[in-house]
């Protein structure tokens, strides 16, 4: 994916985690860098109960054992930020930057259906980009199903620009540093 057209201007600045706020349903939400020991089981739990209709382009995988092997790979290689509801003792969102082996990273973000529409995704993606910028990441890209308008709007709101058009999937790119 080295041939994306990255915007010339650097996006942001974005506030790095930890970030605490109250979501639109009045729940306290903490956004923080993923910690394997503390968060792994709760993160698996989020994906195990993830609405199949919210899957996109084959992820998260549908079966529990595949969820774990998929997470093992991205948690091992990537930079991960989670959103947690401490009152419910749940991980409710996860955003990640996975290196593509080509000096750029691929971004993905997931918010559990019980916590969608509450303003969490927007805070979560900003915190992830703030964390990525701190880590020195320069180029970020993603693909999104063309008809997934809420996701496309979210990505555009933080500065992603579409870089190719003739496909089921929209490719979007952003410069962080």
């Amino acid at each position, binding site marked *: *994916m080295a041939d994306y057209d990255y915007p010339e201007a650097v996006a942001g600045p974005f506030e790095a985690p930890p970030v605490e706020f109250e979501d639109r349903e009045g729940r306290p939400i903490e956004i923080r860098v993923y910690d394997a020991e503390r968060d792994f089981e709760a993160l698996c739990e989020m994906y195990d109960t993830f609405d199949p209709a919210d899957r*996109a*382009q*084959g*992820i998260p*995988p549908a079966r529990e054992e595949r969820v774990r092997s*998929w997470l093992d*790979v*991205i948690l091992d*290689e990537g930079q991960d930020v989670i959103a947690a509801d401490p009152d419910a003792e749940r991980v409710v969102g996860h955003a*990640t930057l*996975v*290196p*593509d*082996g080509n000096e750029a990273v*691929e971004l*993905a973000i997931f918010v559990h259906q019980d916590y969608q529409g509450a303003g969490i995704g927007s805070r979560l993606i900003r915190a992830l980009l703030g964390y990525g910028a701190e880590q020195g990441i320069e180029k970020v890209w993603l*693909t999104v199903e063309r008809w997934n308008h809420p996701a496309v709007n979210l990505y555009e709101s933080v500065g992603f620009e579409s870089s190719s058009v*003739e*496909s*089921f*999937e929209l490719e979007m790119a952003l410069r962080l540093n």
Partner: protein
Amino acid sequence: MKLLLGIGGSDDSWHALTQTAERAAEAGDSLTVAILENPDSEMSPGEIEEKVERTLGEYDLEADVRHVEGDPGAMLVEIGDGEGYDQIVLGGGQRSPMGKIRVGQVAEFVVLNAETSVTLVR
């Protein structure tokens, strides 16, 4: 069944060939392998043909192997629809570093344009 498999040398297209050859050998399907123009492939059409023949040999399968010039999606639809194939078979896409499935451009074109049924092999 009369199958038309398109191959351009990507990983998913090799997987599609192996799966299809195995089933065709069992079911007695008639298979045509169309070697497509693919500027992204590191293999030349000749090298792809050699590897195709080797794979077919592993399954003891006789198949018609032909080189197709021109736009790969358009040519597959033309051959599939025009020559009475029952099914067009293609690789089901590659995975991104994140694990997202990305369906190839040729597969997208064929799915949207062919009258013949299309199988994307996963």
